[in-house]
């Protein structure tokens, strides 16, 4: 009885054929239509408004104003959740969600995208704009000095931080 059932099982297995994809040898199957992969930044269209940085849930697009007219936008890529909010927001459509998913690397800098942009100034006074009220200034639209080395936003003013670290981690005893 059990022998017959084994034979039946073998017949079923032979009838099923091969289901395993030949993936790493052959090319991958096409991803679904609405699949969101790695976002790609088109630096020629970017105006440096930092809307993507303000709305990224992972806070991983960093903005650093080197001087009044040069702004560095840094996409870290390491904690991106591929939500596509940056691509939705971008007024110039400079960010596209590609279908790229083969992004495994040994080093994190492979995932980064670094844009160095010229920023325009006010054509009357030659300075950048400041927001009128304190509430608008909290929305981080003016100059920004995120910690590029620590890969964090800096929420506080840098004016009183001569001896303090800009960002701080929690301390845990590991042993």
């Amino acid at each position, binding site marked *: 009885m059990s022998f017959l059932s084994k034979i039946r099982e073998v017949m079923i297995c032979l009838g099923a054929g091969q289901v395993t994809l030949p993936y790493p040898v052959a090319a991958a199957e096409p991803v679904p239509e609405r699949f969101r992969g790695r976002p790609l930044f088109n630096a020629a269209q970017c105006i440096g408004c930092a809307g993507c940085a303000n709305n990224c849930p992972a806070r991983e697009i960093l903005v650093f104003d080197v001087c009044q007219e040069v702004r560095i936008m840094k996409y870290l890529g390491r904690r*991106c959740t591929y939500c596509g909010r940056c691509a939705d927001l971008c007024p110039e459509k400079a960010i596209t969600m590609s279908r790229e*998913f083969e992004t*495994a*690397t040994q080093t994190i800098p492979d995932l980064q995208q670094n844009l160095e942009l010229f920023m*325009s100034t006010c054509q009357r006074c030659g300075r950048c704009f400041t927001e009128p009220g304190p509430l608008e200034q909290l929305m981080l639209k003016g100059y920004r000095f995120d910690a590029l080395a620590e890969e964090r936003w800096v929420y506080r003013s840098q004016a009183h931080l001569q001896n303090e670290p800009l960002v701080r981690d929690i301390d*845990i005893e590991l*042993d």
Partner: protein
Amino acid sequence: MLKELCQKMFSRSLWVYHANSGGCNGCDIEVLNVLTPFYDAERFGIKLVGSPRHADVMLCQGPVLRPTAQALKRAYEAMPAPKLVFAIGSCAGGGGIWYDMYNVLGPIEKVIPVNFYIPGCPPRPEAILFGIAVATGRLDKKVAPVQFKQVEFPVPRYHPEDLREEDGMVVYEKLEKV
């Protein structure tokens, strides 16, 4: 003879220990998906084991939390010496969207050294297979850092039609209208 044969046969068979240090189970399900017959990672000799003492590779998912940091470090130290760590998903690689929460220490590289990063939230099973293929040397990685630098100002800074010369100096007309 037998030892050489074993080394030849098992040189690329990775035994995998699956550690979740506080993720949402999304990456766990994708890793299990890789082990199913459809994506069949066992044809590369990859086998899921239940103890870090048997494992060559640790697959880490989720950010390091305050309670799990110590446990993750102990599991890493329990693995025998030639060991690899894969960080699967954006939480393990960079902390995810919880990277600066009060109970989250951050990416797992703050506790244990990481050899391979597979970003994604969660990564596709093909992406995990691609990471395995990169780690075992079957394929080359496809991403490279992108650096862009504007060398000249994209728009004219002042309206040149408003510039006029006066006493050997260039005067910007709009300034006078302010």
